[in-house]
């Protein structure tokens, strides 16, 4: 554990009095990320909950320079910033802060472009698995079976496998994290920050109001997602895939907690048919077979 509470006390850069819903996982993530990043970062916030969370101008609860920008423009604006700071001889990390809609859907082309160019930026996807800011509508990152206002009968497709897609861009660093495991998240952000090139970190952010659970359980859901192996904690560092300790048990199907334990806490999975749960388990199983083979070097991307 490289970052103890002492560091956290000194470095968190989210100020109280945000416009976020109570129990917001994006706020938890912002506090942890800023702790790991320190001062020398500029945030590029694309359309989403975080556009609102900052509060009303001329004030903002993000104690960072922030460029608020249109949905699809984050990675490209960050690219321009990175080049500008390079020209000015300043060591400042542009950090894109985007939701899963901004990442998996509307912003994907610019994300892919910036990754392909290996721009010196850090992209953080705060993945609450839907367009929460507009009312929880399905995105490419919404999982199979989840009920949303635009998929009232449950989503028919699986979650887009963004971490693997980003790994396939062969960038220096790709990692996943969860608000259930703060130290893992902070360590990964600290590593990503030091890369001289593109890094991508996707943080699972269980959303009480979209997933429909008691906000006091946000951290718990973040843990359950990992324990049931629904959400993998992995790290792809300079071409090598590592499974984070919190997820190592997932490599063996016998040591996984049943995904049902994760689903039953969420209103979006109320009355989910057994066959959907089966399909979801199947998806998780296949995901772990892939990760296992990658991890053991049997296949490569």
């Amino acid at each position, binding site marked *: 554990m490289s970052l103890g509470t002492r560091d*956290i006390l000194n470095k*968190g850069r*989210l100020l109280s009095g*945000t416009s*976020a819903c109570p*129990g917001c996982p994006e706020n938890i993530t912002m506090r942890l990320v800023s702790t790991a990043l320190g001062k020398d970062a500029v945030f590029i916030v694309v359309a989403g909950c975080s556009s609102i969370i900052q509060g009303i101008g001329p004030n903002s609860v993000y104690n960072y320079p922030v460029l608020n920008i249109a949905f699809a423009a984050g990675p490209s604006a960050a690219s321009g910033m990175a080049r500008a700071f390079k020209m000015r001889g300043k060591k400042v990390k542009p950090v894109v802060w985007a939701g899963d809609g901004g990442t998996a859907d509307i912003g994907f082309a610019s994300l892919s472009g910036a990754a392909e160019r290996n721009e010196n930026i850090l992209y953080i996807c705060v993945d609450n698995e839907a367009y929460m800011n507009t009312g929880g509508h399905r995105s490419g990152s919404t999982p199979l079976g989840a009920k949303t206002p635009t998929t009232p009968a449950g989503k028919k497709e699986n979650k887009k496998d963004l971490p693997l897609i980003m790994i396939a861009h062969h960038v220096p660093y790709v990692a996943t994290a969860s608000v259930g495991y703060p130290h893992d998240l902070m360590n990964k952000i600290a590593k990503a920050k030091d890369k001289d090139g593109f890094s991508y970190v996707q943080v699972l952010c269980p959303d009480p109001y979209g997933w429909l659970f008691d906000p006091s359980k946000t951290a*718990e859901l973040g843990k359950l997602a990992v324990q049931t192996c629904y959400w993998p904690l992995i790290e792809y560092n300079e071409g090598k895939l590592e499974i984070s300790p919190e997820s190592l048990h997932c490599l063996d199907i016998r040591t996984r907690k049943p995904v049902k334990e994760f689903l039953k806490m969420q209103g979006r999975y109320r009355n989910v048919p057994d066959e959907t749960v089966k399909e979801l388990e199947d998806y998780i199983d296949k995901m772990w077979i892939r990760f296992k083979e990658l991890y053991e070097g049997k296949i490569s991307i």
Partner: protein
Amino acid sequence: MSLEYQYFPVSRPSKGAGGKTGNWRVVRPVVNLDKCIGCKACYLWCPEATIIPGDKVSIDYEYCKGCGICSNVCPVKAIQMVSEA
């Protein structure tokens, strides 16, 4: 030419940009100081930065929204959520 007409959409970091969010609260976290072991788990997870750390933690009620995460992550159950009513 006076430049008074120039007005730009810029902001500066400031506490409470989202308002005095303490009044959103329907339940309030109350710390049992006898039980608190100062581990700061509540501090780590608080989404609003309203836990004031120290040997024992305290809470900034001006901004605390009462989400209850602190109560849930506390390993010694030292934080109780109490109705504001």
